[in-house]
């Protein structure tokens, strides 16, 4: 077995040293009825080449985004990740290190985290960031719990144009806590009357920008109304590339920003692993969940970095911790920060504009199809389209033509008849003009 270095001789010598005769003597504490006599009923070990073959066979049964004209988004976006990123994150010193508990021999991971936290704070327009959450959706649930701690109030109000799965995750995360979550119905046309719902019991309002349907909003007034009630504004961003072009949540007065960071540095991978971002104001850091990296000095006075503020965390505070999170999204944060460093201010802004420009191009083309309507007044790189037919059916037929044409909203709102004909279409820098024309042509055929 290629992964197991002990030889039969080694094993014999070691058992002798231990003073037992056979390996099962070391399992003597296991109730005899429970110690298996035979191997479990699964296949035996396999050569590497055979494993490779099995996975290729599974992979071949999927339709990879890169092989088709591709327009899916809804919280997971296909961007081009420079080759350098994947090369660097596969360095064994990063890939095969644990959480940096011993800072003297973990400065690589720690400094990268410190740079990551700075980048996240900058793009969200906030003061500080933690070292990541599992993903955007779980970060959203954590933000609601954090808002309760920070405001000492329990009622969270969720916008109906928040990603429906983020709503579900938040509902689930607060199911057995003392939080009350008020959930608005979905609204494709920005009709939330969130300000009217705020009262003295409100801990926070959670909104998304651009929202799930692609609309961009300025939440400044909402922030003011919340602050007047000593409540918090939580802004969710599922497409972080938008932050290179759209006004930052910080500039609108957000108190907590959570985001899905997958777009930067991380591939689609069928939904995970991704990287949750959580940024806030300096004064709220002690209510924040998750690990955080801070600057300090070593015994010689040299700058260095450590995990800090751990008195918030489960290993110190146990049942009083701000969260139960332990392992987070380490390597995905590294991919994020490397990609962001490659982009820099210039690249990040250009990337954002390029996404927007291509989305505008496609929206104009789609608007030209008879019977098809783009519902957004404004948008970043994703918008909602109304078709004169069932959108899920349209998507299946497009897939037959090697076009993954977007996400039918019925996939996320299965019981909402209003959503049946609607399609969410995303356009990133990876989409070519030819891809767009193929989609537009195919749609014309379909709706004829």
């Amino acid at each position, binding site marked *: *077995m290629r992964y197991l270095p002990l030889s039969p001789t080694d094993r014999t010598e*070691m058992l002798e040293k231990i003073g037992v005769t056979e390996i099962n003597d070391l*399992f003597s*504490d*296991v*109730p005899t009825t*429970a110690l*298996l006599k035979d191997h*479990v009923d699964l296949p035996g070990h*396999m050569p590497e080449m055979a*494993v490779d073959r*099995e996975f290729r066979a*599974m*992979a071949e049964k999927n339709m*990879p985004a*890169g*092989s088709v004209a591709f327009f899916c988004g809804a919280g*997971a976006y296909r961007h081009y990740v420079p080759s350098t990123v994947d090369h660097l994150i596969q360095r064994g*010193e*990063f890939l*095969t290190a*644990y*959480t940096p508990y011993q800072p*003297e*021999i973990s400065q690589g991971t720690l*400094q*990268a985290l*410190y740079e990551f936290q*700075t*980048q996240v*704070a900058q793009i969200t327009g906030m003061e500080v960031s933690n070292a990541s959450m*599992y*993903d955007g959706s779980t970060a959203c649930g954590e933000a609601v719990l954090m808002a309760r701690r920070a405001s000492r109030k329990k009622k969270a109000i969720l916008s109906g144009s928040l*990603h429906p799965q983020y709503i579900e995750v938040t509902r689930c995360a607060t199911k057995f806590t003392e939080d009350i979550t008020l959930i608005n119905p979905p609204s494709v046309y920005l009709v939330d009357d969130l300000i009217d719902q705020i009262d003295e019991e409100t801990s926070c309002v959670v909104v998304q920008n651009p929202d799930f349907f692609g609309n961009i*909003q300025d939440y400044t007034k909402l922030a003011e109304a919340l602050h007047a009630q000593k409540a918090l504004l939580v802004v969710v961003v599922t497409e972080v590339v938008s932050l290179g*072009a759209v*006004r930052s949540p910080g*500039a609108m007065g957000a108190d907590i920003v959570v985001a899905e960071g997958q777009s930067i540095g991380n591939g*689609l991978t*069928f939904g*995970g692993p991704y990287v949750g971002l959580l940024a806030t104001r300096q004064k709220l*850091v002690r209510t924040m969940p998750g690990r955080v990296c801070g*600057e*300090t*000095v070593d*015994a*010689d006075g040299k700058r260095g970095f450590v995990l800090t503020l751990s008195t918030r965390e*489960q290993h110190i505070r146990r*049942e009083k911790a701000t969260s*139960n999170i332990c392992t987070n999204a*380490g390597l995905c944060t590294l991919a994020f920060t490397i990609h962001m460093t*490659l*982009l*820099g*201010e210039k*690249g990040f802004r250009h990337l954002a504009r390029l996404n927007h420009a291509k989305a*505008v191009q496609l929206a104009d083309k789609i608007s030209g199809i008879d019977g098809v309507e783009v519902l957004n*007044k404004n948008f970043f790189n994703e918008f909602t389209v109304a078709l004169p037919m069932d959108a899920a059916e349209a998507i299946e037929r497009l*897939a037959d033509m090697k076009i*993954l044409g977007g996400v039918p909203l019925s996939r996320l709102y299965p019981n909402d008849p209003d959503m049946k004909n609607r399609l969410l279409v995303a356009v990133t820098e990876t989409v070519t003009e030819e891809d767009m024309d193929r989609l537009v042509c195919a749609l014309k055929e379909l709706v004829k």
Partner: protein
Amino acid sequence: MMNKQGRPTDINTAANLSPGGVTTHTGNRGLEQDELLIYEIGDTQRTGVDLEDLPVFESRLGGITRDNEIGLAGLSEPEVMRHYTRLSRKNYAIDMGLYPLGSCTMKHNPRINEKVARLPGLADIHPLQPISTVQGALDLMDRLAHWLKTLTGMPAVAMSPKAGAHGELCGLMAIRSALDKRGENRTIVLAPESAHGTNPATAALCGYKVKSIPANKAGRVDLPALKAALGPDVAAIMLTNPNTCGLFERDIIEIADAVHAAGGYFYCDGANFNAIVGKVRPGDLGVDAMHINLHKTFSTPHGGGGPGAGPVVLSEALAPFAPVPYVIHGKDGFEMVEHVTGGAESFGRMTAFHGQMGMNIRALAFMMSHGSDGLARVAEDSVLNANYVMASLQDIMTLSFEGPCMHECLFDDRFLEGTGVTTLDFAKAMIDEGYHPMTMYFPLVVNGAMLIEPTESESKQSVDQFIGALRHLVTQAKLGNSALFTGAPYLAPLKRLDETLAARNPVLRWRKTD
């Protein structure tokens, strides 16, 4: 001093400097290079990407634009390569040496797993593309589920939890849902003193109060104390097995029976499954729910703190409450249930999309490579290595509890009494010997805990060298050479870091100064 070639032996002599003087212009020492922050190297003008030119277009951002500078530092590609390569060299890693971090299972990370995880057919698929276009992905999830259920002897598995702690939450939410359905309002979760911090933190997130169960002299749950604590208000026990002292809970079946008899559920923390995989099925022990850290037992890389994955196996009684989504076999292939619809008892959704597919791929590759025979060997060799370490050190270090141990062995700081050396000092001196320290000060049931987990990936030579290093350090401590420890590490990229300062005055990001 001059060497055999008649040249100076150290840089201070060569440069006519007194020892400890500034030795190099750069501050670097050969291959040991200092590295500035990206913000101190790059600027907002530089970039490491070339993007296509913008087409002519009219903005549709509704005027809600970002106009001020963000302040992001960019670097060109060669600078990026160098920055992160230099940083990487300041990390210890399993690829460099034995990583005896108890409870963390730092084993070899096979690269075939990385390779297959990057196949476009697996890496480049969107979570919401039509189900008909991802049949291979669902097949993979279904296969992994089958392996997990078979290895644990449990009938169901929830695949979406993102790490161990998330899996704990999944298990406890299923338990609470089952109790709610029975109309029972139980308020307490029992957990041994030795429990990992995530256990009580998770219980609190489910609205439970945590009651601590003491350990007995043998390092196991004190059965009479447990029985006394059980009652109609106890929802569940959360028990790690093998436990965090590295010991198999001998009374586990009796514990499970007692908990069940009192109407509660048995949550098993499966972080230490490595010791028993392929040898013992938790389902045979009376477990109702158990998470499996794919990033421990099944070797998905730790990546400097994740990502992980924490699927949860569930008993028949808890299976109906499992979160969405899950894969089912439909008439035309695999289907996915993504919504909780009318009458279903699922407690909801724990994450957007479907969980940690990238980790599922790697874990399944690890399992298939080993097979049922190899996985049993994994457990045996990990237990053998740990017992060998224990047998080779117990004459000079103080073993907390009598063996045999499972995949890790626990020492405490009694052997350091009177030496002026603490567990922390001892751990830092291991760094100078070229090792990552063991887990220290956990579990909390002994003083100055040192929890050593060598894993099955270590050869006998490697373990022997490690034992040699520890014996050397213990001897030095006992000889009174405390300076070797209290100032350690001496040879790492940085000296000991001031963690108090970091916490007192949190500086969590770079800021422009001038």
